[in-house]
């Protein structure tokens, strides 16, 4: 539960940062936008590392994919979500690439990438509630 709360706050922080990135890019403040894009990636990495540590802890406690139906759903949903987080890093790489050169800087592309990252965030909000809180 506690690690799930930590995961959620890290991902919410990343969503806040990418929203700031979009706002900064729209205002032409590209240094700030770049900073917020890197902050988003950092929070995403914190989420990913804590998720891997959580999996290791569960497996060490004997809770694996085949233990019971709950852990089957848990590992299936959290790993599918993590794959989308990994895709999100590529998407955030596109944001950094776009912001790094004045020749590119497509606001539409930055906002599309941010929308993807927010989607990863709100899906986690639902997964967290369903797997860590509901009983």
């Amino acid at each position: 539960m506690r690690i799930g709360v930590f995961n959620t706050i890290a991902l919410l922080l990343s969503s806040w940062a990418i929203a700031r990135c979009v706002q900064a890019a729209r205002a032409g403040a590209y240094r700030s936008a770049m900073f917020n894009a890197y902050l988003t990636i950092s929070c995403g990495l914190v989420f990913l590392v804590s998720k891997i540590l959580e999996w290791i802890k569960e497996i060490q406690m004997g809770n694996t994919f085949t233990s019971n139906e709950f852990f089957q759903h848990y590992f299936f949903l959290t790993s599918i979500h993590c794959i989308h987080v990994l895709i999100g890093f590529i998407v955030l790489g596109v944001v950094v690439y776009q912001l790094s050169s004045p020749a590119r800087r497509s606001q539409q592309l930055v906002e599309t990438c941010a929308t993807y990252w927010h989607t990863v965030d709100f899906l986690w909000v639902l997964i967290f509630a369903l797997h860590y809180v509901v009983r």
Partner: protein
Amino acid sequence: MSTTFNKRLLVVWAILTSMTLVYVWLDEVIDHNGTVRASTVVTVSAIVIALIKVRIIFREFMEVRHAPALLCRLTDGWVVLIGVCLLGSYFVGSAVAG
């Protein structure tokens, strides 16, 4: 303008984080001595809080509140649909299980 907007984003993040911390409080209130107990109140609260958080993310972080009315209605419809599916599954499942 930019500062006002960023302050708004910070407030939104603080609200979302506070709503996440409500889960910890719910967990503490319902469970005793680390024993997880079934609870309709916790289940329904968890789902409702999650759906409110999703709507806030749609409206504020994804800027849907500035989008055309159709997109606002579509995202709200999605939230309602997911809510009906989740709560419906829970209550129907509980009734079938007796």
